[in-house]
């Protein structure tokens, strides 16, 4: 492997060309947990970030949801309760993608450099980051679940299933964020991604409106190809009993989405300069 290193700047080898034995597996697991531990420490330290990430969805629910809900309900469900699953999904979308994109900043500050020269493969570092991001996001989701008693239509027994759906979605979106973060050199791309990816993913997921035959067909079509529509549908099914597809179909589609994103993310992250 006298590599044909014709790249213009130094690439970083991950050193994966050794046979995997139990010692190596143990080392990689420790590496994954190290990165995970770091992300959790950082998350826990920035309390203001946790608070704002919970307050924002609560404002959507109570200020936006209650306002519209005063004159609107969907079927027999109050609008505010109706968008609760959508707002949970929104928290997961924003939290996960931004977490992943944050590595642009890590790279700028050289924080990742010392981690990337450790005797741990890039894939493990990637998985540690994914776990770290999911933990952050799901803690926020758990806090939002704690407020679910304020929404009379929510069925608390559906929470574990909703949690599972949101976990898989978070894995997919943290991976997506890391994949994009591996490609981008500067924070300028951040705005572009926010405007052209994150907001469309959110608006086209049916988080704020029902997906039925009343939708214009172009909008209905876009919603259908958005994988996050299936998260919203599944979570709404679990918590409110309102779903267009059987929940196992929803779960299947987002699991597939997560698998594709994990593979894409680990490839791009391994190639990152």
């Amino acid at each position, binding site marked *: 492997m006298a590599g044909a290193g014709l790249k213009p700047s130094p690439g970083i080898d991950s050193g994966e060309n050794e046979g995997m034995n139990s010692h190596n597996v143990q080392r990689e697991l420790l590496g994954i947990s190290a990165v995970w531990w770091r992300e959790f420490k950082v998350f826990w330290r920035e309390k203001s970030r946790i608070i704002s990430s919970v307050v924002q969805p609560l404002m959507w629910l109570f200020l936006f949801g209650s306002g519209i809900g005063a004159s609107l309900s969907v079927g027999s469900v109050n609008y505010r309760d109706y968008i609760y699953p959508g707002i949970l999904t929104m928290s997961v979308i924003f939290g996960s993608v931004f977490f992943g994109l944050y590595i642009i900043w890590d790279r700028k500050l050289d924080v990742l450099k010392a981690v990337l020269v*450790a005797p741990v493969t890039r894939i493990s570092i990637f998985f540690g980051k994914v776990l770290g991001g999911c933990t952050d996001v799901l803690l926020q989701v758990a806090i939002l679940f704690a407020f679910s008693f304020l929404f009379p239509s929510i069925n608390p027994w559906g929470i574990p299933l909703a949690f599972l759906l949101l976990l898989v979605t978070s894995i997919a979106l943290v991976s997506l964020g890391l994949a994009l973060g591996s490609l981008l050199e500067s924070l300028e791309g951040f705005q572009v991604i926010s405007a052209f990816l994150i907001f469309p993913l959110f608006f086209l997921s049916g988080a704020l409106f029902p997906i039925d035959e009343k939708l214009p067909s172009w909008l209905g079509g876009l919603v259908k190809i958005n994988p996050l529509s299936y998260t919203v549908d599944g979570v709404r099914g679990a918590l409110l009993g309102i779903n267009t597809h059987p929940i196992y179909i929803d779960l299947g589609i987002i699991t597939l989405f997560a698998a594709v994103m994990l593979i894409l993310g680990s490839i791009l992250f391994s190639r990152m300069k």
Partner: protein
Amino acid sequence: MAIIEIRSLTKTFGKIRAVRGIDLTIEKGEIFGLLGPNGAGKTTTIGMLCTIIRPTSGNGIIAGFDIAKHPTQVRQNVGIVFQDPTLDTILTGRENLQLHARLYGIPARDRSRWIEEMLELVDLTERADDLTKTYSGGMRRRLELARGLLHRPAVLFLDEPTLGLDPQTRARTWEYIRKMAQKERTTVVLTTHYMEEAQLMCDRIGIIDTGRIIALDTPGNMIDMLGGDIVAINSPSPPLNKILSLPYVSAIKTVGDTIEITMKSAHLHLAEILSLIDNVVSVEIRKPTLNDVFIKLTGRDIRQEDADNGGGWVETIARYRQRGK
């Protein structure tokens, strides 16, 4: 016992031949200095040895492992302190070391003991639980040194360990490096372009210029190679031939009204020389430095390269990019 063996190591970036075939053997326990101007290939060489950069050709063995075939084992056996700071500033000093300990697979039962030991070695025990963003430049460097040595590597690579520090902090940092090298007889390979510091610190030095090692010896031997001390005498009419015929004089160079005599043991022979010259205006005796060695070998001053950055734009641009944030 050789801990590092490099054979015709080469790295090409596009059309730029950053490293052009380096051969080098470094013994266990040595403090080895790679000296050269910016862009000479020092950082690229270290990058290849740490398996961060893939060599274009040639090979290297570190602690018995091939850098191309067994990068993971090589990484386990080397510690690195980068030129630019890489601490996690949202974590405390101790947490930075804990992260590193896990990444390098240090067993849980040893972790906290090894960490305490290293914190003590670099005198950071009292500040260990403060966020590293509150540390001074010198403290950050020390913590990075501690981190580089935490997993007890066979070789510690230091890329310009004192760059950007004030002179006092620089001197202290070198003290720490020496202390750490003595612990467990760690081999230290460092790059620097502070010639005086290299002269004091290193057992052996390789001078690197445009991607090649052009001299390899102890600092003492390198300086002796110049033929002794330099005596600069300012006088209007020195008898040049008479002086040159003296057995202990090896060279004379005339710079305007001043002659520079290269000679052995200047302090013993100065009186005799001065007796040959009339109208001496001033006399200066100078011990040659590694910078004189560099000038002799390349015809250029090593620091001159800093000013005009001749040829060294790959490393220079990389550095500006990292600084300019």
